[in-house]
């Protein structure tokens, strides 16, 4: 390998500037040849860069393709590029518009290809702060996410805390029993028959056996309801069985929602970036399963948090720093995941916890009762 590294750039202005900056930052000396000198230096350059969106450079590229010269090639293009087999192992195609990340990635990949082919011992990989395929995966995921309607949360101005900051951690804990979510959790835990909750704006009917909630009234009001402390309702809040039905069911048809979706919504709104006092937020844990996201209200960064938290055992602070997001988003998600029983409970790798928390167990028990009754009838 000759020193300095010779890179011939044919009519690739932006790429040339970026390459120059990048190689300088890596303390690599490079000879950059102008388009006029390309012909001459192309014979011995280690790497050639062609911006084939330029007609002249495109002609040079086609000449190079047809020739026998074996050098590393970076092709800057707008679309698909056909590569002859002999060049496939030493060519990298970068799509316009170029970015420092894409150029760094291109150099890194070229260095690897050339090292594999035993061609270069001096073209060292250039490290990008974030690899391009990884960055593009995030961009693609963002694009697919689009603009879904969901909860918005603005935590940027709020201070972040450390896992050992016990005083602040205490301030960020909330008691779910003070909110609708706590009430829902408690009534669901003790009864599997239809439950009615009367609130000033309407009512909620819970059918735990089938996992469906019926909301009477406007969903916007339900959102407001989830954020209020129960003591604010006073005597206007009633919980009961069938006897309450006639008092809360108005003429309008109800909105159906799964109980899982209602608990998710109620927890996220009550939490507002906090976490339940029963949850040790600094303890490492892992998601046993993903929530059924298409059926739940969207919240900021939820899919990213799920992906990371399902892949490894981490605490909420590590998740937030790993994703580069405000930790309040993670606390809110942790509250909702905890309420739905999504965190692994055992230390046996994949948790054997019922996917839907206690409901499945209750249904199984309920099935046993029915079975026993049938048997008693037979006897």
């Amino acid at each position, binding site marked *: 390998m000759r020193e300095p590294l010779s890179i011939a750039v044919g009519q690739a202005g932006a790429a040339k500037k970026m390459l120059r900056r990048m190689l300088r930052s890596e303390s690599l000396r490079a000879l950059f040849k102008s388009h006029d000198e390309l012909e001459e230096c192309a014979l011995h350059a280690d790497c050639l860069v062609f911006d084939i969106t330029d007609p002249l450079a495109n002609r040079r590229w086609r000449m190079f393709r047809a020739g026998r010269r074996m050098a590393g090639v970076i092709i800057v293009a707008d679309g*698909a590029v056909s590569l002859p087999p002999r060049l496939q192992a030493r060519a990298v195609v970068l*799509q316009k518009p170029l970015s420092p990340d894409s150029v760094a990635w*291109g150099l890194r990949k070229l260095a690897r290809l050339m090292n594999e082919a035993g061609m270069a011992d001096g073209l060292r990989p250039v490290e990008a702060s974030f690899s391009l395929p990884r960055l593009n*995966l995030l961009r693609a995921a963002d694009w697919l996410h689009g603009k879904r309607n969901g909860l918005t949360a603005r935590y940027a101005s709020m201070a972040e805390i450390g896992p050992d900051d016990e005083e602040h951690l205490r301030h960020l804990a909330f008691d779910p029993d003070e909110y609708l979510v706590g009430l829902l959790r408690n009534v669901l835990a003790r009864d599997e028959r239809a439950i009615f909750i009367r609130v000033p704006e309407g009512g909620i009917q819970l059918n735990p056996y089938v996992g469906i909630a019926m909301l009477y009234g406007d969903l916007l009001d339900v959102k407001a309801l989830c954020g209020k402390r129960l003591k604010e309702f006073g005597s206007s809040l009633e919980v009961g069985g069938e006897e309450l039905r006639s008092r809360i069911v108005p003429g309008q048809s109800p909105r159906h929602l799964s109980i899982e979706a209602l608990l998710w919504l109620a927890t996220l709104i009550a939490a507002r970036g906090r976490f339940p006092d029963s949850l040790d937020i600094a303890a490492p844990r892992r998601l046993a399963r*993903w929530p059924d996201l298409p059926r739940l209200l969207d919240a900021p960064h939820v*899919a990213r948090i799920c*992906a990371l938290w399902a892949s490894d055992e981490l605490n909420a602070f590590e998740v937030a720093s790993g994703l580069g997001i405000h930790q309040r988003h993670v606390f809110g998600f942790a509250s909702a995941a905890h309420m739905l029983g999504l965190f692994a409970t055992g230390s046996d790798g*994949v948790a054997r916890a019922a996917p839907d928390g206690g409901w499945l167990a209750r249904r199984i028990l309920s099935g046993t009762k029915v079975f026993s009754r049938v048997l008693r009838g037979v006897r």
Partner: protein
Amino acid sequence: MNEFPILLVGPDGGGKTSALRTLCQRESTRRRMVVVNGDKRIAVGVEQAALKIPDVGELALRLYPAGRSALLGHFLRQMPHAGVLLLLDGGDESAIEQLRHYLKQLTSMTEPPTLAIGLTQAARLSRKRFDGLAHQAADFGLRCPLFRIDETRYEDVALLLESLLLTIHVTMDEETLDGFSSFTEPLSSVSSDLYS
């Protein structure tokens, strides 16, 4: 290969074709790929479409035929894919057996592909069956996205694919990621000997 392919697999009626059409309205192409199984070379007809993502590039989506599901493990070993979307009719009585069949194929590989599961026909999918399917995935040691989706609804299919890409993002090492060339390299017209 000059692509970042995602493979859509699943039994007949699982919603693979609908999901592909929902994501890529553009026309798809059919390719014959040859899978070597012992002494035999078996042709597999794969439908392929490209999802154009602005400022990123093209994501190749391939649809694997249900009739060749027994060869899926061989196919993936010989033609690595960045991830797999498994789509099943959740309302089907045999959904659990079908899920087990596909998961056996996928988890038998030394390095199982990154997976996301979509259960279609959500309206006919009871909670009980959904929980049962989630248990099956847990039995195979999987913590992958498992969603009830409407395969004709863009938001649902896009969210499933988004979750798969994010799982790839956090689980796949740099070397493997680079091996797929990613989106910066557009689909080239290069044909390899994998295609007959």
